[in-house]
């Protein structure tokens, strides 16, 4: 045991660089480049505000990711609860003093960036629960108290985010948290029962939804009921993707997007534009890059000797998968419209910040995969 610790502490900077996961790194870089091209297209084939801003964010956050990668993952383990608490405080702060945009109070103005704490919470909750389950003895996992505590950890930010209101992000936070609970070893039957009771209580939940949220669900079930109003986005999105065909309409030739038929094309509906211009082929390639990233993260998790990095990697991989599938299901008309960005590709600083922090921690876990955290 001592030997191990000595071995780890001897890791030099050069070794760290050698231990970086280059496949993951290249995939992230590739995704960043693609995102810049797509952003260039949303600007109508010009370098305008979105492209510039996106480029700066990528550059800054990519660098930040590398810095995080070289920081020992222990530090994240130590500060996980603190990080969670800080983000929680920010969420509370936002709910009082946040900037309100189109009826939703999610942002805090940091002058150089409008930060969305709820996005950061997606990472914080994984970190927090990973630490909690790391420290929890396997015998105590299914204790009433420990389950209750972990549920409280999940529910508090959920409530705060729902009240913004931002149903999409809160669901993503909840799913990320629950994934750690699942990985941590909570009995399958608990999941089964709670899923059942969720289904039973679904009608009641729906009755508590805000009118616009109900409308979204109705629209999802039948987009043609109001093709120029609520159903417009999903109809136009499907038209854009469907008309892309196998090879796509070509870079900068997506008529749906450049003639402004696509709303929110640079944020939640970025995949629509990509798919219209690059077609089925491009979409499959993009998904493959995401898949490679997810698999690499899972692999790093498998290789990690400690529970904390393992849980984090699995949790984060799962979270990314959830982000992607929720976003794609939404633009493909498989799910109602919930605000959920596509990692890296969507325009938006907070989401990218959170994702890059996550990648940084994963890279750090790779570098320190043999380290055992007490």
């Amino acid at each position, binding site marked *: 045991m001592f030997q191990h610790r000595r071995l780890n502490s001897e890791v030099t900077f050069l070794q760290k660089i050698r231990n970086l996961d280059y496949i993951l790194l290249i995939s992230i870089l590739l995704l960043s480049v693609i995102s810049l091209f797509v952003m260039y297209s949303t600007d109508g084939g010009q370098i305008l505000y979105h492209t510039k801003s996106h480029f700066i964010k990528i550059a800054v956050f990519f660098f930040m990711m590398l810095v995080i990668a070289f920081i020992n993952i222990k530090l994240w383990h130590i500060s996980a609860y603190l990080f969670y608490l800080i983000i929680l405080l920010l969420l509370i702060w936002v709910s009082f003093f946040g900037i309100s945009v189109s009826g939703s109070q999610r942002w805090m103005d940091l002058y150089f960036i409008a930060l969305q704490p709820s996005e950061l919470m997606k990472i914080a909750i994984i970190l927090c629960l990973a630490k909690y389950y790391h420290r929890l*003895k*396997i*015998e105590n996992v299914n204790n009433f108290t420990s389950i209750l505590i972990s549920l409280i950890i999940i529910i508090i930010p959920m409530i705060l985010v729902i009240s913004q209101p931002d149903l999409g992000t809160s669901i993503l936070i909840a799913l990320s948290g629950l*994934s750690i609970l*699942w*990985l*941590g*070893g909570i009995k399958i039957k608990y999941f089964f029962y709670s899923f059942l009771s969720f289904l039973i209580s679904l009608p009641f939940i729906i009755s508590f939804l805000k009118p616009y949220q109900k409308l979204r669900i109705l629209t999802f079930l039948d987009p043609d009921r109001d093709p120029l109003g609520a159903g417009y986005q999903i109809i*136009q999105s*499907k*038209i*854009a*993707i*469907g*008309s*892309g*065909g*196998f090879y796509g309409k070509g870079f900068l030739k997506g*008529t*749906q997007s450049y*003639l*402004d*038929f696509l709303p929110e094309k640079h944020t939640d509906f970025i995949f629509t534009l990509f*798919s219209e211009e690059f*077609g*089925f082929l491009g*979409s*499959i390639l993009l*998904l493959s890059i995401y*898949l490679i990233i*997810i698999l690499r993260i*899972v692999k790093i*998790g*498998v290789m990690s*000797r400690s*529970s904390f990095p*393992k*849980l984090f990697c*699995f949790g984060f991989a*799962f979270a990314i*998968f959830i982000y992607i*599938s929720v976003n*794609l*299901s939404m633009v*493909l*008309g*498989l799910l109602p419209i919930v605000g959920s960005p596509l990692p890296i590709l969507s325009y938006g600083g907070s989401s990218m910040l959170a994702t890059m922090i996550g990648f940084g921690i994963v890279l750090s876990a790779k570098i320190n995969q043999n380290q055992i955290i007490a």
Partner: protein
Amino acid sequence: MIRGNSSIRKSDIMNRRMFIVGAAKLIVLSILIGRLFTLQINDNKKYLTLSDKNRIREWKLPPTRGNIIDYFGNIVAGNLKVYQLHVIPEQVENFNYLLSRLQVILNLSNKRIEKIKKKKDQLKPWESLIISENLSWSEFLKINNYLYELVGVKPIMTISRNYPFDEIYTHVLGYVSQPNEEDILENEIIKERFVPGIKVGKLGLEKTLENDLIGTNDIQRYEVNAYGKRINQLEYQKGRKGSKVRLTLDTEVQKLCANLLKDKAGSISVMDIYSGEIIAMYSSPSYDPNLFLFGISQDEWQLIRNNPLKPLINKTLSGLYSPGSTIKPIVALSALENNIVDPDFKVKCTGKIELYEQTFHCWKEKGHGYVNLKEAMKQSCDCYFYEVARKLGVDRLKITADKYGLGKKVLGDYFENEKSGQFPNTNWKLNNLGKGWVLGETLITGIGQGYTQTTPIQLCLMTAQIANGGYKIKPKILTDDNQLTTEQIKEVIKKNKLNRGIYTSLFKDPRNIKIIKQAMFSSTNEIMGTSYKSRIDDPKYQFAGKTGTAQVKRISKRERELDLKTSQIPYNDRDHALYVAFGPYKNPDYALSIIVEHGGSGSTTAAPMATKLFKLLIDRHQLRKENKNLKKTYI
């Protein structure tokens, strides 16, 4: 050690559970890819169509109307380049300033400016706003001079209907103008091709032949964005120009008619007696159809509407007149056909007939003495025809009159405002007035007064059918490529191959027709004939005719004694002057009818016009024959 075991167990659980999650992910991933496949590969066509529907929008432009040409190929309704001024509001920095500039340059009224402002509010900012539909050339030049400072202003050249002969053809062609709701609802084709700025026929052939003339829209295909703004033009699809329509009318004759009837109210119709082609059809006074193209001004409209000579009425087809003495050939023919009289039958005219205490006057107070058919026709003796009509009876007379086309629409398929008039008989009176026929009415029917009402075109057709030897013809206003030549028709008639039911004979005995024609000849070419003064001795131009003077007002005894000159009678009480004729006498080709409202007597007012007309008609006869099939191609 325990700790180590527990952490290995923990790690195992995590890895195992991760594997389960991985399997779930695989399912989700395949659902997503499946969906992507469905949308992009399976339904690609459907969505591509929807995407094109989104981005491509069509703009229909007004179609180009087909030309209407006369028999010789002269364009009588064509298309003219006009200059218009459009403004695209979104390109204009200060709209009000621009308007005030334009107001100065084009001298626009304040009212017009208000209208333009109102129109602007109804349009999208990138749609062109029409400031002026018809700029004069000097205005167009002026605008072009100032164009550098008038951003957003577009002088445009476009095509508009044009009637080069102004009022000459108005009653035949009608005119075009912007369609109203009724026009659009009535005609499916107008409804389908309607675009702002389209002009449709409002009257006459322009209306009747709308579906041939209208043409198809030019179509501009634009790529538009989600807000409907045009991004770029993808295609310009030229529409089909409306079909060309060739009339049987001759502009030169038409012009002469207009000239003869200048400042008079009346009508002249000329017809080819074999083919039924109408050579001229003019109703006077007329008005300029070009005034209606861009909306007629209130003042000009009032001027036309309030003109006492009633230019809006097409007198040739909807003017109803008593035929007066022009009916006499039919009365005589009917009597001959029914063996009531023979040519030698004589009546002694004393200037009047007494019947049941009613006096029926001859136009000649002193009377004509003993007259036979020829003399009676020649001098238009009323007493003779009173007597013949009495013997014939109105019912038999009506049968003949019907045969020759009186009381029936002649061109009803083409002119919805044509009237049929009527030729009465005993039943007619019973059914329409609920009273029994009185013998006296037979007498006045015999001289073309009373209930008989005919249109000028009917009288022309009647004359034509007598002139051609008593054969039925179908009057035409449009040329027919299969039309037989006069020689061919004569051949058909000679061989008695009654072609297509058109050239059926209307007589019982051809000699009767000959007698009538001779009588009409003497009326024009023998001394004492009513139109003797208008005769032409040259056999080439020699024609035969019958005058008519239709009373508008019953002449009172006092007035008869006064024997007033036409100029002494108030205009509206004066008699209508009529004349029907055919020529050349030996081998007739043309028949005509002339009516001058309140023109006094037929012999002084109407017959002299025929002299000029026959000269022109016969001079142009050869030319007309040569142009039967128009060789030249006209646009």
